[in-house]
């Protein structure tokens, strides 16, 4: 797959939760139309990295640029308007609201700008991508199954028409078949032109569709390379692909 110029860059990002130093000089970049996987054990700082990109956490030092613009210090909604949306870990849907309302809220900034017709078209497109959501449009989103909730979370993020879609553990807690479908959808989205940064515990699934990947450990990037390199790397195999590597 042809990839383009650099879209997102983090350089030397340090971030703290109170006194706790959680990101220690993280540097990484994502090129346009790439799928980049961010791997690592629990507590390695993956989710924190994503929170920092989306301005939910302000880095103490370091630069984050998106499409050439410095985005450190922006408000989260401004980052969304620039074209970064995140599917947070654990879906984080607006459970009491309907499926359709969740999707509408994903396009909040565009609705406020009065572009309703365009948003309604996009909802139809999401229903084509995930037909089950169309069938459940009026249902409370909290009553959906785990896989359907994940589809809705992705759909809601897509409603903002992101240039960069960030997904945090989209397959966590899903049945293998559903997880495979989600992974397939993600690679499909990339072929439609969306750039993707993917955090996933299931390193093999992530690397199967990724172009490149980074491995984080205790707040630092310890390894980076193409997906094939990482899949071959002995350390990665030992630590993240586990003993079932032989099954491949």
């Amino acid at each position, binding site marked *: 797959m042809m990839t383009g110029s650099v879209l997102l860059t983090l350089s030397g990002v340090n971030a703290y939760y109170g006194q706790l130093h959680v990101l220690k000089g993280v540097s990484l970049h994502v090129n346009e139309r790439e799928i980049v996987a961010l791997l690592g054990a629990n507590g390695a700082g993956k989710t924190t990295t994503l929170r920092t990109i*989306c301005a939910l956490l302000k880095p103490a030092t370091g630069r984050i640029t998106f499409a050439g613009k410095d985005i450190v210090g922006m408000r989260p909604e401004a980052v*969304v308007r620039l074209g970064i949306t995140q599917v947070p870990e654990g879906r*984080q849907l*607006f*459970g009491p609201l309907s499926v359709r309302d969740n999707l509408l*809220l994903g396009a*909040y900034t565009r609705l406020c700008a009065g572009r309703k017709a365009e948003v309604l078209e996009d909802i139809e497109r999401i229903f084509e991508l995930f037909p089950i959501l169309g069938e459940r449009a009026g249902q409370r989103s909290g009553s959906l199954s785990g896989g359907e909730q994940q589809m809705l979370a992705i759909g809601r993020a897509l409603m903002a028409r992101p240039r960069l879609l960030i997904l945090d553990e989209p397959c966590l807690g899903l049945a293998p078949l559903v997880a495979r479908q989600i992974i397939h959808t993600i690679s499909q989205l990339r072929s439609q032109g969306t750039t993707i940064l993917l955090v996933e515990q299931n390193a093999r699934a992530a690397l199967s569709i990724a172009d490149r990947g980074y491995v984080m450990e205790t707040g630092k990037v310890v390894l980076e390379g193409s997906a094939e390199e990482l899949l071959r790397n002995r350390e990665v195999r030992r630590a993240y692909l586990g003993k079932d590597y032989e099954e491949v």
Partner: protein
Amino acid sequence: MSLAELLQYLVTGVTVGSVYGLVALGFTIIYNATGIINFAQGEFVVLGGLIFYSLYVAAHLPLVAALVLAVAAVALIGVLMERLTIRPLINSPVVTLIIITVGVSVLLRGAAKLIWGPEALPVPPFSGEHSLFVGSVAVHLQYLWVLGLTVLAVVGLRLFFDHTIVGKAMQACAINSEAAQLAGISVSRMVQGSFALSAALSALAGIVICPITLASYDGGALLALKGFCGTIIGGLGNGLGAVMGGVIIGILEKLGIGFAPQGYAGYQDAFAFVVLLLMLFIRPSGLFGRQRTEGI
């Protein structure tokens, strides 16, 4: 007690109760957006009445203009309160913010006393001193104003939350503020909106009730407490429950007067608190369950 008397108490109870309901709804809206119990809620009610007095009685503005302007003025005060006292400290523990609202309440009450003086001010009923008779039950026309505007406000609010994108965004912030931020919703703007809305509702309550109770700088605390009782009875966070809770408090209060032995009617204010305590002992989640984000 005769049936006519009972009905009379019920009518009065529902009327004052719907005012408590509006106040309760005001509590709920701010609570859902921020987790704060706003102790300055009663001052919004009082300021509504007093500003309305200045516009309608002192400045002779037409009723509707005075009503709309007074509501808007108090909404603006709500916005300023959020902007100046809550937003700078929004990351503090909720208890700190609640104490701040206590401070704001004292400040507003003092300011109101300076501006309008310590005397209670009379406001004439909107449609004169007439009553409608249903059988032998007299319904003062002002009661109809109270009930009508309350219903209008509740229905309007319901439509706002269910059918506008801003209303849905406010709900989204209450449900999960971080996810709302990731969807591009400005949480601080929604919090500000919740203060405006809550202040406006309370002001409306203060305006419609002041021909019945007089407008006075220090009437806020009691109204706020009864509204708060309504909030708890309805289940903290449940908008429709809060309105029902307020109405229930109003009815119990008036029936209490009706059934109290001679000479004890003066204890009417205590009924609300007895009910509140019983509620907290027996069913702290309120009558209408624990659906924090279900209602308005």
